[in-house]
């Protein structure tokens, strides 16, 4: 055979898939996991049985005996936990948004027009761009939970600690994605406006921003949904959100209560998710005049106005104001206050604590004793080589294997879950399928899509926490927790592609006798393979970030070391491991960034 032919027969794509498969086994091997150990332990099997058998009987009242008379009614407790989760998410996001918008703009090149401008302006623009990028990368490389631990250690358990802990990484993530969305847009409209004499900013405002607008809004809403998940997880460090109550209820063995809380969290997230979907639909809906008249008066009178944006903004503003100021606006809502957190410290004391924290607690222990900063290096070396390096490697393995599992299973499920592909007339090509099988297929697809929605709604940390009791203390629960959440995300994103793009070639293949599976394999997958890969890398970098905290559940990896250092009050070590995690995340970000920009250009 012709050697070049042989080469093309085994293409890059297949090579890459094979590489992923091998990488998965390598990671599992590195984690010392055996496939035959995959599965519940004997004790775990019983836990699982008990847990899932109570799924349909969530607690409607306290399960424990001996609840004091003074305790609030059960529904109030649930409401409050749900409210606090929502409140911290809302306050955090409302601070993150301005950060994200401002830095996102400066991190984007979509408005640049450097030719012919003075060197000083060029220098200023390029420098601010560079600085923004660095801040963004640094800010998001530390997980919000770790920001939380740092802030709580520094200024005490105070609502502001939590809000800032959400606002900083979320602001940076918003900025990063906003700038990417802006940079991804086609530039021909902007060029046209410049050709008509438009300035750099106004050509951007009218030629790029409108193209990205609906994407920007839906991403902000997606982040809000994530913030709710994060706020819930803050319960695991002592804030009284849903996560806190899930942890205590689990410890007390009140499984029915766990289910009530899970349902409350799921409901909260699904409401936001549906709302976000609805908003996107409304914002992207194109409009056509209902009347066929050409008189200006009639056209003005009969124009269809899209008031949604107005109502949407008013609603958002109200939710934000209420979250910040509810106790001063509505004194009756005082029972919603987070009493665990109202530290009685004055701002001055907090500021003092903060300074003390920065100046002495964060200082490496040997330096505190000797006063010589040169002692930092041997100290750091020791931490790195004794435990840090290995923990970072384990964290990487967990993240990578989880993502590979999630991606392959989501791609495998995709054709079965697609609305367009599983409809009785896929891509509006008649198939002659019987009504009965047609609706069966359609139902299956709907159920699978629901599965994507639910798995995506569940925070990975929470899933890992629940799975730990079933699978025992191996890395499997962490991998599965991450994989389950990302399975949902990749599934949803992939579904968006199949259902919302026009596929002439798919229709053509169906019309010459191709089956659904075939057109998925030979038309949809090849034409969007790069996009699917893009999602892989986009989620992989997030996985690494999330994996840095999963170890806090007690499995050796970076999170474990961080949790351990925090328990020993050695904040210098905590800070060191946090920075090590940040380095890992940044490496992941950079690698994924390079690959993604290559994929986009390809």
């Amino acid at each position: 055979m012709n050697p070049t032919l042989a080469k093309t027969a085994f293409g890059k794509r297949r090579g890459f898939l094979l590489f992923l498969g091998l990488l998965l086994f390598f990671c599992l091997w590195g984690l010392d996991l055996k496939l035959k150990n995959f599965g519940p332990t004997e004790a775990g099997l019983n836990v699982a049985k008990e847990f899932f058998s109570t799924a349909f009987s969530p607690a409607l009242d306290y399960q424990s005996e001996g609840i004091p008379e003074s305790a609030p009614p059960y529904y109030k407790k649930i409401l409050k936990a749900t409210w606090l989760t929502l409140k911290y998410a809302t306050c955090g996001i409302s601070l993150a948004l301005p950060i994200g918008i401002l830095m996102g703009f400066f991190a984007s090149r979509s408005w640049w027009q450097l030719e012919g401008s003075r060197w000083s302006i060029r220098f200023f623009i390029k420098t601010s761009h560079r600085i923004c990028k660095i801040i963004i990368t640094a800010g998001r490389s530390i997980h919000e939970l770790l920001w939380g631990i740092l802030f709580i250690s520094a200024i005490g358990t105070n609502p502001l600690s939590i809000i800032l802990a959400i606002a900083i990484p979320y602001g940076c993530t918003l900025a990063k994605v906003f700038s990417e969305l802006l940079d991804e847009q086609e530039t021909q409209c902007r060029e046209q406006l410049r050709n008509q004499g438009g300035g750099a900013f106004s050509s951007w405002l009218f030629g790029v921003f409108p193209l990205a607008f609906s994407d920007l809004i839906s991403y902000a809403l997606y982040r809000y949904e994530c913030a709710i998940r994060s706020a819930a997880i803050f319960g695991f460090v002592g804030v009284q959100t849903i996560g806190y109550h899930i942890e205590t209820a689990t410890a007390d063995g009140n499984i029915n209560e766990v289910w009530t809380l899970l349902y409350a969290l799921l409901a909260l997230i699904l409401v936001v998710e549906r709302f976000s979907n609805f908003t996107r639909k409304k914002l992207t809906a194109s409009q056509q005049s209902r009347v066929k008249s050409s008189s200006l008066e009639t056209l003005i009178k009969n124009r269809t106005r899209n008031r949604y944006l107005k109502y949407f903004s008013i609603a958002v503003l109200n939710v934000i104001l209420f979250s910040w100021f509810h106790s001063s606006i509505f004194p009756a809502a005082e029972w919603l206050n987070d009493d665990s957190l109202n530290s009685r410290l004055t701002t001055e004391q907090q500021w003092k604590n903060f300074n003390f924290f920065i100046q002495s607690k964060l200082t490496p222990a040997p330096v505190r004793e000797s006063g010589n900063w040169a002692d930092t290096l041997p100290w750091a070396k020791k931490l790195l080589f004794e435990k840090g390096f290995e923990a970072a490697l384990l964290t990487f393995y967990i993240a990578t294997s989880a993502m590979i599992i999630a991606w392959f299973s989501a791609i495998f499920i995709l054709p079965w879950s697609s609305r367009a592909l599983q409809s009785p007339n896929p891509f509006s090509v008649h198939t002659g399928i019987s009504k009965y099988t047609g609706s069966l297929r359609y139902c299956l697809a709907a159920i699978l899509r629901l599965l994507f929605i639910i798995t995506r709604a569940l925070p990975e940390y929470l899933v890992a926490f629940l799975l730990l009791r079933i699978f025992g203390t191996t890395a499997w629960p962490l991998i599965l927790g991450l994989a389950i959440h990302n399975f949902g995300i990749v599934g949803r994103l992939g579904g968006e592609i199949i259902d919302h793009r026009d596929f002439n070639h798919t229709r053509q293949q169906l019309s010459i006798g191709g089956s659904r599976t075939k057109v998925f394999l030979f038309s949809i997958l090849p034409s969007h393979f790069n996009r699917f890969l893009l999602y892989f890398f986009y989620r992989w970098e997030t996985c690494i970030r999330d994996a840095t905290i999963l170890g806090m559940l007690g499995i050796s990896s970076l999170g474990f070391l961080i949790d351990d250092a925090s328990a020993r009050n050695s904040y210098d070590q905590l800070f060191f491991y946090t920075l090590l995690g940040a380095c890992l995340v940044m490496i992941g970000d950079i690698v994924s960034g390079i690959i993604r920009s290559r994929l986009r250009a390809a």
Partner: protein
Amino acid sequence: MIELKEVSKSFQSTKALSGINLIIEQGERIALIGPSGSGKTTLLKLLNAQHIATDGSLKVNNIEVAKLSPKQLRIFRSDIAYIPQDLGLVPSLKVYQNVLLGKIGRFRTLSMLRKILLPSKAELTAVHEILERVGIPEKLYDTTSTLSGGQQQRVAVARALFQQPHTILADEPVSAVDPARAKSLIKLLDQISTENNLTVVMSIHNIHLAQQYFPRVVGLRQGILKIDSTDPTESELEPLFDLAHTEEIG
């Protein structure tokens, strides 16, 4: 007046235009013809300084365009309408908003924003009038992406007219409309440019339309000016589209 002296334009290794000499008086209407890849788009882009000539000089109203500062360039461009091959309409905006954007070079960002979001009755009337002239007044409030290809071309023409330029540069603006529409659109541009003494330079694939409606025809082949005539004969036109002579066929 537009004046090209020995203008050449190269992209890396390809020479898109070489040694072009051309004088266009204010109010002239010129059809630019030539096979695919002959340099029509490149020439049009030179005329409003999207590209700068590699060699030679290009003056518009006695101003050397290569020397304009960014601010001067914006003012210069706000008087020249350009309709690109891909139209450059913002698909998610309404038709009237796209037309209003024709004057983006004339207004400050904030006042442009006000016009886009809350157009006054007078502004709407002006836009509506122009849409009536191009034949799609009923699309005023429609989202631009819902229009057909030919309708979108007419929106682009409307935007150019709304700009009130002294020169209109158009890159195959009638390729997607039916022959009757193409004729009427060109007639319209003809009429408006005569009324207002506008210069029009339009690249066009249909030679018959070019001969019929344009007093002057300029023909390019492989970046060289082959024809510049007020009444080109068949024998002059033929080598331009003779496949044996053409390397690139589009």
